[in-house]
C-alpha cells in the first residue's frame, strides 16, 4: 500500500468554550497549515468530519470550513461516521491523494457539545434505534460502557481499583498537554469516591462531552518532498482501517437493542478494527511504540489493549498494573491523556488521536514524550458499525 505524508497537524484546545464549532475547526485548520508550511490557497481538497448537533453547517462540514477559510475553489467532501468520523474524513482525503486526484488535502473536524449525557437527535422518531434505546430502556452511552465494564469484572476478575488506575494514569499523561481540557492529577481514592453514574463506573471514569477541533494536512510523498526538501522524513500514514462488522456481530453495541443471532459465531468486530490496519501496514502489535485508544470509559481502555493485540484476553489489568502502558513503560497507551483528559468532541476525536501520534513520532510531545517513538496506532469505534484505526510511522 502506498503511503501519504502528514505534512501538518493542529488543534483548538478542548474545553467548554461556548463558541460555534466552526471557530474551533478554523483555528485547528490554520494551525495545521502553519505547521505544514503551506497556505490555505495551496489546499486542493477539504475533507470535513460532520457534527450532527449543530444544524445544517454541521452536516456539510467540508464546505462549512472551506467557506470560513475563504472560498478558494477547493473540492470538498463531508462525512459522518459517529465517533469514527475523523478516520472516515482522513480516509476520504487519503483516497484522493492515492488516486492522484490531488496532491494536498486538509482534514478538519470540530464540535460544540451540549452539557451532560448525549441525547438522541430531537423530535418524536420511533423508527430510530438511537431514539428508542433512550425511550424504552433508558440506555445512555454510559449504560453500554458499564455493561462492558461489568463483563470484565465477571469474566476476568477486574476490580474497580483497576479501572480507577486507568484514570489515574491518563490524568498524569495529560498534565502537560496544552490541548487537554482536564489537566489535573487525580488519585485512585478521588476516582473511587466520585459519584456512581452507571454502576460499576463512576463520574471520573466516564468521558465528558467537550468542544474542540483538530486538523491535519495530508500530502503525497512527492508533494511533501517538494515542500519540506528531499531529506525531510515527515510522519507517514501507513494504514487507515474503516472496517464494519462481519455478520453475525454477537457483542451488544450502542445503540442496539440486541445482537445478531450467534447460532453461528463470527470474529469479534472490535478485534477486526486494528487487525485490518496492521494487515494494510504490514505491521503487528509487536511493532508499536505507542497507542491512542478510545477510552470512553476507564474500563473500555482495558478492552482495547486486548482488541489491538497488546495482550491476550483477560491480561489487560496485568499490563496496566505492571506499568507497561504508562509513559516510560513498554507500550504507552494514551500519552495524550486520552478522552479521560479531553472529553469527547465527536468529529474531531479520531483526528486528534492522529495529531498526538504525529507529535509523538516527531519527538514533539513535550512532557509526555514516548522515547524514540517511531510507530503508533490509533483505534476507535463509532456507533452503527464504524471501525477506525490509523497507523502512523516515521
Amino acid at each position, binding site marked *: 500500500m502506498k503511503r501519504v505524508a502528514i505534512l501538518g497537524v493542529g488543534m483548538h484546545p478542548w474545553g467548554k468554550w461556548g463558541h460555534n464549532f466552526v471557530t474551533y475547526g478554523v483555528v485547528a485548520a490554520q494551525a495545521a497549515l502553519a505547521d505544514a508550511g503551506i497556505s490555505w490557497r495551496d489546499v486542493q481538497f477539504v475533507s470535513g468530519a460532520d457534527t450532527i448537533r449543530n444544524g445544517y453547517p454541521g452536516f456539510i462540514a467540508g464546505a462549512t470550513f472551506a467557506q470560513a477559510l475563504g472560498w478558494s475553489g477547493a473540492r470538498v467532501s463531508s462525512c459522518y461516521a459517529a465517533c469514527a468520523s475523523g478516520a472516515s474524513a482522513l480516509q476520504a482525503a487519503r483516497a484522493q491523494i492515492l488516486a492522484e486526484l490531488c496532491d494536498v488535502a486538509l482534514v478538519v473536524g470540530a464540535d460544540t457539545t451540549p452539557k*451532560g*449525557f448525549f*441525547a*438522541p437527535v430531537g423530535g*418524536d422518531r*420511533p423508527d430510530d*434505534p438511537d*431514539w*428508542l*434505546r*433512550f*425511550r*424504552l*430502556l*433508558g*440506555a*445512555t452511552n*454510559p*449504560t*453500554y460502557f*458499564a*455493561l*462492558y*465494564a*461489568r*463483563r470484565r469484572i*465477571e*469474566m476476568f476478575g477486574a476490580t474497580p481499583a483497576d479501572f480507577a488506575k486507568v484514570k489515574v494514569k491518563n490524568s498524569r499523561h495529560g498534565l502537560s498537554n496544552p490541548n487537554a481540557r482536564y489537566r489535573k492529577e487525580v488519585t485512585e481514592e478521588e476516582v473511587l469516591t466520585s*459519584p*456512581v*453514574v*452507571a*454502576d*460499576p463506573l463512576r463520574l471520573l471514569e466516564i468521558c465528558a462531552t467537550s468542544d474542540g477541533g483538530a486538523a491535519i494536512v495530508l500530502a503525497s510523498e512527492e508533494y511533501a518532498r517538494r515542500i519540506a526538501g528531499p531529506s525531510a522524513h515527515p510522519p507517514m500514514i501507513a494504514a487507515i482501517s474503516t472496517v464494519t462488522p462481519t*455478520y*453475525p456481530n*454477537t*457483542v*451488544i453495541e450502542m445503540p*442496539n*437493542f*440486541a*445482537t*445478531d*443471532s*450467534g*447460532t453461528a459465531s463470527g470474529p469479534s468486530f472490535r478485534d477486526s478494527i486494528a487487525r485490518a490496519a496492521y494487515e494494510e501496514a504490514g505491521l503487528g502489535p509487536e511493532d508499536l511504540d505507542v497507542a491512542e485508544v478510545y477510552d470512553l470509559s476507564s474500563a473500555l481502555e482495558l478492552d482495547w489493549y486486548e482488541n489491538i493485540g497488546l495482550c491476550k484476553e483477560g491480561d489487560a489489568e496485568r499490563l496496566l498494573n505492571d506499568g507497561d502502558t504508562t509513559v516510560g513503560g513498554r507500550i504507552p497507551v494514551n500519552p495524550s491523556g486520552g478522552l479521560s483528559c479531553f472529553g469527547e468532541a465527536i468529529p474531531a476525536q479520531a483526528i486528534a488521536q492522529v495529531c498526538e501520534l504525529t507529535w509523538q513520532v516527531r519527538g514533539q510531545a513535550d512532557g509526555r514524550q514516548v522515547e524514540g517513538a517511531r510507530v503508533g496506532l490509533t483505534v476507535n469505534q463509532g456507533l452503527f458499525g464504524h471501525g477506525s484505526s490509523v497507523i502512523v510511522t516515521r
Partner: protein
Amino acid sequence: MKTRTPAIEGWFRLDDADPRLLATRCKSCATYFFPKETTFCRNPDCDGRELEEVALSSHGRLWSWATNYYPPPAPYVAADPFVPYTVAAVELEDEKLVVLGQVAPGVSPDELRTGMHMRLTLGPLFEDDEREYIVWKWDRA
C-alpha cells in the same frame, strides 16, 4: 384503573401468563432478528425476503448488567423522584441473541451474576393520566 398499553407496538406480546419478545425469522436461513427485520434478511450469504414473525424464547442467561444512578435525557420518561434502575443484557437460550431490557424492579443488582438464568416478564415503563405504558423486563428465573 389505567389502560395497560405497550410502550411500543409489535415488539412483544402483552400477555402476563406468557410474555414473549416478537422477532422475525428468515424462511431461507432460519436466522432471527430482534427488533423485527421485515423486508430483507441481513445474513450476507442469504437472499431471503420472506421473514416470518416468531415469539422468542422467554429464558436466557445474564451476559452483563449496569445500574443507572442519574436520570437519562428525553425521550426517557423518568420517575420523579428518580429511582435508579438496572439494564441487563441477556443471551437467549435457543436463538443466541443478546437482548437488552430493564431489570424487574424487585431484583437487586447485588443478586445478579453473569451466567444466571433470567426470564422475560412485563412491567410499567411510565404512565400518563389515562394509560400505563408497559415494556418487557428481565427477572430472575
